[in-house]
């Protein structure tokens, strides 16, 4: 019988809160063979990261590992090793990649030294030799201009490059096992695709085993042979990737799989009819943005053109998806429409009037018609106010409630509307989960009975299964209240289901705009193609058919002096 590389059995971990022990991992078992990749998938609070850290014995001081737990690595029992013995394994036999490359590198140490440090600790080599080896590894992880980079500090590199450095550090001593803890969560979608590809490539070249921890089923589908699904500290289901994707046994797994947006799903007849009305010109235009721009001064001379002269229209009852990566200007656009950021120039015509010319009083009235839902459910609710007052504030400002009782009744109505219990009105925000908070934020926006709502990445801070629920709620509300949405997101997969039409933003410009089906089936602009190819396909069979095109991180797509032109009916491309 061949010995497995890693065997975790009955892992049980608790946190000592000072008063009691809280169990966060219970009876978790899994194993990895040599050269294999195992994915652990779970939502926040599933205990997946804690489990991974216990393999390195890098848990916080208040974590207690149960005595009956066993972690066998390479035939040796890790739980019995001393700190000194563990140090010989860390970095040498097991390498670890962390989530956020912006914080996981030492800001005051040169990159080269951070990589060679590992080699110098574990191997009897000269500094010169360690430097040569480090540069080889930097080359392996796809870093250009190695000699130059070797002498640089982390802040001189982009996020994607930094994550490559983190991987290089983990690989420095050719470990037998690589633990990657959400290695792409903090990165833009196109960068995410490259890092995943890099990990696959490394595995092919070095034969190392990988333990991949993620919340994203899309990521594991074509990376891993086997999957362990975790929820609330327990293993829900384990098996080969193909098995789990095609025949999930547990409800929880089924729900997670169902929450993955299907890019090839057909539109419903209702949605098609709505689109027809828009295209035929019979649907009322609710908002028209004309040459809107928002520039931020950067020091004395430079300006950041966050939004640079964009135009689009939104029709009553539709959802326009606005997609772009960080720095594309999508959120600024949403804020400039509501004048939360004062636009530098341009028109925003709402119900026939340019709101950028509005005086204070008109503006206040406009705010009854146009509302905003924010990204972060944690910072978008004032922690010191009760839910009743958070939602009720909108009523107070516009004097929409005649009496205290009316105010209370209206707040309860709104809570009903967003699917929350009426009793929640007397509680404070911190008592709620992310999804519930987001519902409160939606209720607040609905309080003034708006026609149009800007939704700024309302899903990105939520777990996948919760995301699906919020999408359902938004669609439901749209139908009931005849709402119009501008739905901002950082990846195309999210907007596919909810949007009627989609606009793709890049460097402050709209580079492509069409209905979502057309855009997904026939993307024209290079950037749209890049975004589409970066979506991890949650289908284990997909790999065989050819996989991704490989985007180059350094490649910049030029958009200077180009104009949005209609290349096919209702399909606009910047060219």
């Amino acid at each position, binding site marked *: 019988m061949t010995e497995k590389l890693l065997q975790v059995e009955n892992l049980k971990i608790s946190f000592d809160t000072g008063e009691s022990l809280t169990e966060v991992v219970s009876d978790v078992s899994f194993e990895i063979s040599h050269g294999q990749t195992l994915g652990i998938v779970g939502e926040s609070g599933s205990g997946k990261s804690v489990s991974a850290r216990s393999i390195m014995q*890098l848990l916080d001081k208040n974590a207690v590992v149960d005595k009956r737990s066993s972690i066998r690595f390479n035939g040796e029992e890790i739980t019995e090793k001393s700190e000194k013995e563990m140090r010989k394994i860390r*970095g040498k036999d097991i390498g670890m990649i962390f989530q956020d490359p912006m*914080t996981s*590198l030492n800001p005051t140490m040169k990159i080269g030294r951070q990589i060679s440090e590992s080699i110098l600790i574990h191997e009897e080599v000269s500094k010169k030799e360690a430097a040569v080896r480090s540069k080889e590894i930097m080359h392996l992880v796809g870093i250009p201009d190695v000699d130059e980079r070797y002498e640089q500090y982390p802040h001189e590199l982009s996020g994607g490059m930094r994550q490559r450095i983190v991987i290089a550090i983990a690989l420095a001593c050719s470990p037998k096992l690589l633990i990657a803890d959400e290695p792409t969560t903090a990165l833009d979608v196109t960068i995410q695709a490259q890092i995943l590809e890099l990990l696959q490539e490394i595995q092919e070249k070095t034969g190392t085993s990988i333990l991949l921890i993620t919340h994203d089923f899309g990521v594991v589908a074509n990376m891993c042979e086997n999957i362990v699904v975790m929820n609330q500290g327990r293993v829900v289901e384990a098996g080969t990737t193909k098995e789990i994707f095609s025949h999930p046994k547990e409800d929880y797994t089924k729900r997670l799989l169902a929450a993955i947006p299907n890019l090839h799903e057909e539109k419903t007849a209702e949605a098609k009819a709505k689109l027809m009305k828009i295209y035929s010109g019979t649907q009322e235009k609710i908002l028209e943005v004309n040459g809107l721009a928002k520039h931020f001064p950067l020091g004395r001379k430079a300006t950041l053109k966050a939004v640079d002269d964009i135009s689009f229209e939104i029709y009553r009852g539709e959802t326009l998806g606005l997609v772009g990566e960080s720095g594309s200007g999508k959120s600024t656009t949403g804020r400039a429409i509501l004048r939360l950021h004062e636009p530098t120039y341009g028109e925003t015509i709402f119900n026939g009037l340019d709101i950028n010319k509005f005086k204070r009083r008109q503006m206040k009235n406009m705010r009854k018609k146009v509302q905003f839902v924010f990204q972060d459910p944690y910072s978008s609710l004032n922690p010191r106010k009760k839910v009743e007052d958070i939602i009720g504030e909108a009523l107070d400002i516009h004097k929409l409630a005649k009496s205290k009782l009316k105010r209370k009744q209206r707040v309860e109505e709104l809570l009903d509307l967003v699917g929350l219990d009426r009793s929640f009105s007397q509680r404070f925000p911190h008592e709620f989960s992310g999804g519930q908070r987001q519902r409160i934020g939606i209720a607040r926006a609905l309080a003034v009975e708006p026609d149009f709502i800007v939704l700024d990445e309302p899903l990105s801070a939520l777990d996948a299964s919760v995301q699906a629920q919020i999408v359902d709620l938004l669609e439901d509300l749209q139908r009931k209240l005849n709402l119009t949405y501008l739905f901002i997101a950082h990846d195309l997969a999210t907007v596919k289901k909810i949007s009627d039409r989609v606009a793709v933003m890049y460097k402050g410009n709209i580079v492509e705009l069409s209905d979502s089906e057309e855009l997904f089936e026939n993307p024209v602009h290079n950037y749209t193609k890049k975004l589409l190819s970066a979506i991890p396909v949650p289908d284990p069979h997909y790999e065989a058919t050819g996989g991704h095109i490989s985007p180059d991180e350094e490649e910049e797509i030029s958009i200077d002096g180009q104009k949005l032109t209609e290349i096919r009916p209702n399909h606009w491309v910047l060219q």
Partner: protein
Amino acid sequence: MLKFLGKRFVQMIPVLIGVTILTFSMMLLIPGDPAQIMAGESASPEQLELVRERLGLNDPIPVQYWDYLKGVLTGDLGDSIRSGRPVAEEVFGRLAPTVELAFYSTLLAVFIGLIAGVISAVRRYSVTDSVIMFGALFGLSMPNFWLGLMLIQWLVIGAGWFQASGWGTHQQMILPVITLGTAGSAIIARMTRSSMLEVIDMDYIQTARAKGVSERVVVYRHALKNAMIPVVTVVGLQFGSLLGGAVLTETVFAINGLGRLIINAIRARDFPIVQGGVLVFAFLFVFVNIIVDVLYRFLNKRISLN
């Protein structure tokens, strides 16, 4: 570097002007007639008028300020009422002991503060940590004039090891430096500790541990350097604030520095000296701050680029 230095100076000009406005208005706000104070109690009305004319007290206030500002820029701060000598001469003659006292006290504060802070952070939540941190809290809570008197009580009157007045010899200098440096040590120790503990929780410390780096190396190679960044600013500012603390220390140890000059001048109602002394203190402090800023920038060139 020079460019940055120049830029900081230019930025400080409004502050320096504000400082001169404040010191100028001191003269306007003192109760009683400045001319009377200058000329003395027994002066006749004619003499008073003469003094007023000479000092420009009959001019409108903006003109008076303009004359004052011109004086400041040319180094003319008026004359002392008591000695009749130019204020600038008196003030600059007393500057050296004050600056030396503040400088040595800062050195002491850095030396003790850093060592204590690092020890405390490395052995966090131990008895050593508790003792150091309580000591620091105590050091912070002592009025330095009282500490000075206690040191005199024990080490001068009791043991006879040092001298209790004057400035120049080791025997004279050690006690004032300890007196003034204690609170600084306490502040730096607390700052170092909390900065170290903050850094220890950073992700990159986890990265270092995951490499198999020993805890010792984690602390001294990875954490210390990053933890020092905020401490550097505090160290610089200490020098400035110890300048102010020197007023009390000089009084306790009878050191003929700028602080004591001001105190004696206030008692003697010699306002030109008070005004000039305060002005020079403020200018000195502003310049020290500029230098600290530049040094900080120089030490953290990499960080500030970000």
